[in-house]
């Protein structure tokens, strides 16, 4: 399925590179957090864009020093019932102010999209959901009870005129 972001299908120049495989010059790659941290000092010397693919048990705090420079963080959902990625996303967006792309990869289905968006994930590499169903999922609820990273105003504010 195509990558969906900002309400449209999107070309994807990024490739995920397994540990041990070479990063060629001039490309767009994501690597695991441990590799990113180990190679971070040398990456800025090269004509290569490097993002990070977070595993569910990665600690996002380790990424904080680099957030200004990173363009893409992928959050891996190994199973769609594994909800750690939502907390990772909220931490990156709301606590640490990460502004780049936050992409859900792995077992990403239509029925997680609403929650993902509200947690600050703005790109979806889905298993089966096509663009129309993703757009529908994003609108499933017009009101929400909590603040979140997606910017919706919670009803406890709307009720009192803000």
């Amino acid at each position, binding site marked *: 399925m195509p990558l969906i972001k900002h309400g449209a299908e999107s070309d994807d120049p990024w490739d995920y590179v397994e540990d041990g495989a070479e990063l060629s010059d001039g490309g767009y790659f994501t690597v695991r957090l441990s590799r990113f941290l180990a190679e971070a000092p040398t990456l800025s010397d090269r004509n290569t864009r490097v993002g990070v693919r977070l595993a*569910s048990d990665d600690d996002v705090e380790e990424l904080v020093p680099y957030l200004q420079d990173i363009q893409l963080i992928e959050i891996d959902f190994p199973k*769609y*019932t*594994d*909800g*750690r990625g*939502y*907390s*990772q996303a*909220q931490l990156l967006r*709301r*606590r640490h102010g990460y502004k780049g792309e936050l992409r859900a990869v792995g077992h990403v*289905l239509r*029925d*997680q999209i*609403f*929650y*993902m968006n*509200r*947690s600050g994930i703005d790109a979806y590499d889905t298993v*089966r959901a096509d663009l129309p169903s993703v757009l529908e999922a994003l609108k*499933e*609820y*017009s*009101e*929400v*009870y*909590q*603040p*979140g990273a*997606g910017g919706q105003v919670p*009803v*406890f*504010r*709307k*009720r*009192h005129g803000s």
Partner: protein
Amino acid sequence: MYRYDEFDEQIVRERVAQFGGQVARRLSGELLEDEFKPLRLQNGVYLQMHSYMLRIAIPYGQLSPRQMRQLARIARDFDKGYGHFTTRQNIQFHWIALKDVPEVLGLLADVEMHAIQTSGNCIRNTTSDHFAGAAQDEIKDPRPWCEIIRQWSTFHPEFAFLPRKFKIAVTAAETDRAAIRVHDIGLHMRQRGDAVGFEVHVGGGQGRTPVIASLVNQFVPEDRLLDYLEAIMRVYNLHGRRDNKYKARIKILVTELGEEEFTRQVEAEFASQKPHEKIDLPREEIDRIHAYFARPDFPARPEVSDAFEAARASDAGFARWVKNNLHPHVTPGYTSVTISLKPVGGTTGDAMAAQMETVADLAETYGFGDVRVTHTQNLILPHVALDDLPAIFADLVAAGIATPNEGLITDMIVCPGLDFCTLANARSIPVGQAVQQVFADPDYQEDIGRLHLNISGCINACGHHHIGHIGILGVDKKGEEFYQISFGGRADEKAAIGDITGPGLKSEEVPGALKRVIDTYRSLRSSKDEIFIDTLTRLGHDPFKEALYATD
């Protein structure tokens, strides 16, 4: 009670539409069963032995007459004419067709009800003291905060796919009637000077690893409660175990990290919240929700009711019922009434449609439109005048729900067991009925006094056997059902997990063995005022174990 505004209404209606779509995608094959399962569970739809079951949320156990009548209608039109009230203050319908579920959800939405998050690995229905707002011993009414928690936890984007289910209970009374210490989070409202806050207990639970919760914070001010809950939930969501379903509850995380380290992590997360991350519920919103729970204007009634006293003197059945089924009310001349759903030989927690309608009528006529469901699977009219009790009693007798056994040995918690549940290893209902028969004599029950007897048909402990003064757990040994007995559990402010006595008994041995235990208690108690659990505490378990395994 709380009433939906246009926002609440919109959310519940959109849920009905969303679930209808999910069912359609499952039926078309777009959704695989494995993918559909978490979705249907988060909407309270289980697959049971014989059919689908729908579990409907009754937030903190409160129902209006209109809602109760709608439940009766659903029971009649979509089930076999009855519903089953549960230990989480919910109601279940065990004979619902999957195709009917969206329609039933629509009927529920019509009366401001839903089945959202009544199952699945998410935050479940928040439970509370069934006498909230009526009890003499509460510092404040806990329901407004339960409603605030309900809204905060509904479709919380971060906490919809937790390692395991998550249950929150709230009490505001020193006597804990909400069993908060066996919940994932138990909140006890406290007052410090003018400030109201919550004592926070985390990591209690039953199931195969019963644990009494750890006290994590003695006082979280009320306006920081949701932020504190978020901190607990985030630590759990990120670090709770996901490799083994049976080790995934927060109690295991608390146990494995240790109380001190777990508390440190929660406090660190709480302290890290930046100003814009805080929920910062506006004071107007807190006040708005509290206003819905303002105490009714109780017309003045004499503290001593002539009608009540006359009926008590002339009608022995009435006298027995009021002796056992009333609870002191905050207003003179009023009382709270327990409507027992534990007739001898019946199925614990079941109510027929017509019985639900009787309760709805009584609540409307005499009870300020308020009905509660207890975690012990009974119903309550929290506010009735003593003057009206004779009329209420007469209607309850006619409806077959005037059993005078609140808190007595036949008022037991029993899970559905192998007769209904795919998880069960053994039957619960027939064993409960057989035990009830032995103690059926009302004089005998009253002589025994307060005693909580709970029965579960498997290790998941839905029947709360760990926290019964006497607990019974059904197990399967090579195709035969056995029943393990435990002593000394309790759910209140002195919460404790019962100790297993020894080898399991065959089902037919259980009633007689328990009778020996009870008669031993009656011969050993220091006075009639010393209830079973206190005698057990004073003397230790040995004399009772001996009685349990004695051969006649």
